[in-house]
């Protein structure tokens, strides 16, 4: 057994600077859920196929389950826990609750982050744009239609808030 030397990397998570040991290609998801205690990002497959682990890296949706933590060195990561200080994420969360858009809820934090990236790019997306943005996510409970409606509701509410 060859011992593993520490490999410290720095990045920001939800606006806070962190420094963690990323030795041995430890996945970003493991660092987020383990050392950083941010359990809102879920382990679903470890294969970049279901989207449950989705976070934002520099604002773009990214699978956290298999990419090594060192790959986000000096970059900015956002998780669902950022809803505390991100108005758009907070609006999405509120809209998901208003629509009761979910059953088990396991897939939702990843979906909400993909929706967050979509709304940054396209503040008033139509249904096909939402479906396209969420098609990388799997939901087994069948809450898809409610989820799409929740994203539409969040977009509409945000548009009202910024309107004069």
């Amino acid at each position, binding site marked *: 057994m060859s011992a593993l030397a520490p490999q410290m990397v720095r990045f920001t998570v939800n606006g806070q600077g962190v420094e963690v040991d990323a030795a041995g290609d430890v996945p970003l998801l493991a660092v987020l859920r383990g050392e950083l205690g*941010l359990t809102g990002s879920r382990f679903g497959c470890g294969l970049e*196929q279901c989207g449950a682990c989705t976070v934002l890296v520099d604002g773009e949706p990214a699978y956290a389950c298999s990419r090594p933590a060192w790959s986000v060195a000096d970059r900015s990561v956002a998780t669902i826990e950022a809803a505390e200080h991100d108005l758009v994420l907070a609006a999405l969360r509120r809209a*998901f609750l208003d629509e009761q858009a979910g059953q088990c809820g396991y897939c939702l934090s990843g979906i909400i982050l993909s929706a967050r990236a979509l709304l940054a790019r396209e503040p008033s997306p139509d249904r096909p744009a939402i479906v396209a943005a969420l098609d990388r996510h799997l939901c087994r409970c069948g809450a898809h239609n409610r989820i*799409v409606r929740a994203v539409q509701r969040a977009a509409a509410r945000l548009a009202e808030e910024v309107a004069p």
Partner: protein
Amino acid sequence: MIANQLPRSLADNPRLDAWIGFDRPGQVRISTGKVELGQGVLTAIAQIAAEELDVAPTRLRLVSGEAGEGPNEGYTAGSYSVENSGGALRIVCAEVRALFLERTAVLLDCAAEELDVDDGAFRRDGRPTGFDYWRLAGDIDLSREATGGASPKPVAAYRLVGRSLPRTDLPEKIGGGAFIHDMRMPDLLHARVLRQAWRGAVLGALDERALHRAARRTIEVVREGSFLALLGDDEASVEAAAAVAREKATWSGGERPPDEVADAGWLMAQPTVERVIAEGEPAEAGEKIEATYSRGFIAHASIGPSCALAHWDGTRLDVWTHSQGVYPLRQSLARALGLDPGAVAVRHRQAAGCYGHNGADDAAFDAALLATRRPGRTVRVQWTRADELTASPFGAPMAVRLRAALGPQGRPADWGIEIWSAPHGQRPGMHGVVNLIGAEALPGAPPRVPPGDVPDANGFGSARNAHAPYDLPAQRIVTHFVAGHPVRTSSLRGLGAFANVFAIESFIDELAEAAGRDPVAYRLSLLADPRARATIEAVAAMAGWSPDAPAGEGTAKGIGFSRYKNKAAYMAAIAEVELDEEVRVTRVWCAVDAGLVINPDGAANQVEGGVVQAASWALKESVRFQDGRAGCVQWDDYPILRFSEVPAVEIRFMDMASEPPLGLGEVAQGPTAAAIGNAVARALGARIRDLPLSRDRIIEALL
């Protein structure tokens, strides 16, 4: 006064204090043996309890799934929760409210009828009395048995039941750490378990040095017989070693399934236990029509792989699990580990969506066994995606043969159904067997005992919904039960109902076609039950059903109907499909009669989810086997319906609030598949009788 007939859950757990307590000021403890699986059951149960007690729902503290503390209600399964647990709590809470009001009446020297309850405070003629549940809690002994003597509220008085209260568990699930996967314990020991390649497979020699090398940090290897686990403080190292173990493991012996195990023909050729459930003689005359339908293995395919934690201190075992049945699991764990059940605490913690007997119990055994091997540490077992897809029990493959003779006016003059099926119930403890795969891998594991079918009293297994809901001459119902099936199959949402309703409703359409009748009109001509008729008529109106719609044009609508378990909720569905080489389900309309609906939005969520999941099963899902192993180790091998493929769904609940609540969690599975199958047959101009309605089968039908 005539006592209410006690629901089964209350007969099994008659003491009032098993269900309710006022031990914390301003709060009410409500205990239920049913657990939250993402179906919203705790919200519905809270509504029922708060309604009968007249307290704000926010005062309730729900305790759910605690073996040894809360009521034993078996499994959270079979769409029974609202009927049984909700039914029990309705009676318990009405009785407790009456006991408190009687006591208050004595103290105030007035009649109990002069009193009412406002958010837990007792009022006389609308004015405060100074008494409430908490002040009088010490006066009233709830360690007595329920009598069922108090009358629950009439429906007209409901303020909470029948309203769409938001789910109490969703905010935390959207936010952060609501799941068993998120539990943090001091001194955690991470574990991965190597799954046997097939049942009874014997693990060959494995070079443990390669596992340590791959880990790169300190890990431990626990090997007992064919049970192999990797443990360590660092989860990534444990996973790295486990990946090598999976790659290097060699397997022999056991019940290796053949590659054709998923074919209906293979299933029908196996030795079976035959049972005639209903006799019915074939008619002499009339055109004879016969057809055979099938479905293969369906994976639960939960989004979150199973997880469990366990801690053993030398005398007591604590287990945290997302099992559907904490009491039966406790019995099986104790038996498998040679412990007294009283020394085992099993607590439910929530996880990703659960649609039947998945890997939760097996993961709990993995953790429990390993905890006893590492006393003092809390062992956390996390299954992989491949474990979840291949080692959870599968939904049972089935073949269903129907026959009828057409009599006058095209009505069936006789009717027969024969069902071939793998087992639908191999949960822990069922049929007197431990039923935990980790235990099967241990040295000296007892030989496997072929299981029985699910008992009739539980709504049947293979024969669930085998009885066609139409007014037919004596129906002959026969099951051919493949008890010795080599692949582990068990309960998946709807059990036999999915394939049976698909087959019966497809066959009814085939008969309608042979009789030259419209499928909706034909069904109505065979149905006297007014609730069934109203449900079908409602969905036909919603979908704008037209008897004159052309066939073979690449787009069409189809209908499916059933009453789940022939005794729970009714549902009629109409699906609209478009097809070229693939089927797209564009819209589904549903009419549901579930009697009194406790939470309409929650119920709609369940039905809509069932429609989408059933559409996924019907269009895409089937597990193939190769070299003895299930060929679905990742999502790419086992596609499910995606956002871009999900139909629009419209649901209407029949206004039946005066009728008792009927279970609806599984009602959508059969009717949805049948509606899609019938729509595809019409759009294609040819019928596909084997599920899934895959691209290959469409192309074959087009040729």
